[in-house]
């Protein structure tokens, strides 16, 4: 039995069957049992996703415990990491997510940490722009002009001092940059469709945890 479950064909059969129940009712009017299976499959995926999160806890704990037991440089930080994670889990599971201690940790560590990590990027973008936005050729000039007009349009002070920059910036964002983003969207969609076809053809089994073996020439 286990050899059947382990087989590539078995997993591929699951993918094909599942895909049928998702695609078919979307394009063709289908009887209720089929749409029921479709709904169940989508809901089940949500359940699987929520269980998948638990796996990350195991991975993190194992890695950090190993660092602590082997006394790797900086091990006290690992202890801090798993300590806080498990403290929050124990408090959250036993007392609930609205418990005072849980919200205290969230408000003190997680929310400000999360916000700061992304806010730091503004510094890197500033210093990187100062060092790299140099007019060396036509391409870099265009890059600079694109950024310049949009920065002017975004800043109320820019619009106030140079009112004619605003419409140029808006035009660039709503037409030029939009056209580029549209191309990215179309390209990503085509990529997604190709991926779906390759998955159904059994060419992307690494996505389900099967590592592709190198085929002989």
């Amino acid at each position, binding site marked *: 039995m286990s050899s059947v479950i382990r087989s590539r064909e078995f997993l591929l059969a699951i993918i094909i069957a599942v895909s049928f129940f998702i695609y078919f009712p979307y394009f063709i009017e289908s009887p209720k049992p089929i749409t029921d299976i479709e709904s169940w499959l989508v809901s089940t995926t949500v359940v699987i996703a929520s269980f998948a999160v638990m796996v990350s806890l195991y991975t993190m704990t194992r890695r950090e415990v190993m660092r602590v037991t082997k006394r790797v440089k900086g091990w006290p930080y690992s202890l801090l990491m798993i300590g806080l994670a498990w403290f929050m889990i124990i408090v959250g599971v036993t007392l609930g997510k609205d418990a005072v201690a849980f919200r205290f940790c969230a408000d003190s560590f997680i929310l400000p*940490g999360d916000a700061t990590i992304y806010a730091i990027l503004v510094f890197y973008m500033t210093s990187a722009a100062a060092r790299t936005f140099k007019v060396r050729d036509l391409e870099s000039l265009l890059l600079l002009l694109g950024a310049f007009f949009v920065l002017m349009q975004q800043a109320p002070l820019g619009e106030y001092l140079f009112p004619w920059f605003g419409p140029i910036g808006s035009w660039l964002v709503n037409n030029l940059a939009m056209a580029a983003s549209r191309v990215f969207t179309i390209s990503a969609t085509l990529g997604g469709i190709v991926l779906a076809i390759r998955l159904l053809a059994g060419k992307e089994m690494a996505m389900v945890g099967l590592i592709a073996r190198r085929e002989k020439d």
Partner: protein
Amino acid sequence: MDGREGRRRGDVNLDIGSLMVILLSTAITFGLFSILTGVDNPFFAWAENIYVGGAVGMTIVVSFTWIVSNLIQKIVSNPSANWPLIISFILGLMMLLRVHPKYSYLARIPISIATGVGVAVSTRAIIFSGLLYQIRATILPIFDWRDPATAFTNLMIVVFVITILTFFVYTTELKGPLKVSSGIGRLALFASFGALFAQTYMGRLGLFLGRMETLLIPETNFKISVIVALFMLITIIVLKNYYPETLKKLVP
């Protein structure tokens, strides 16, 4: 407990819990900002590890809460009517076997279902939203003489989309008109990258402004921020210049 209410109203009579929240959140914020000094320091290591641990803990608790309230409670209340949910639950549990060396292969079943559903659900819809609607939105009137400005803009959108698309053609050698088109697309891409950079900058700046607002307003936060920032900055300077060996030991 939560200091936000007090801070928003400029209330100075904060309880000890609220003050602790402000102090710790300010410490973790400046701990993470400390990397901007260019020195690998213990404040950053502390903040980084605390944040990662806490974030994992929070995600687990919220997912667990959802499983209990939307799955287990439903199953327990009426198992016979909710039998499909029992199968979903079993598939979820099988996912946990991913970490078991002997039975990890069983986790491939829920992974296959989730992958198949995920790819199929997204593909069936993006064919319309990501392809057909985008193409339709690009087919624009370009010979409207009553409104030449709009006609020009429409023409530019059509030209930019086509030329940028040709820039991404890698399967054939670009010659003649295709090469010209690709060249125009390349230039258009550079200008649009500039515009996209400015938009991204606006976003990150918005985040930083919000963070600074929390750090500076009202006065209690401002005072705590100044003290914490100065303490960290001075400590880093002293450690770097006078105790470099200690600094090395303190960072992972």
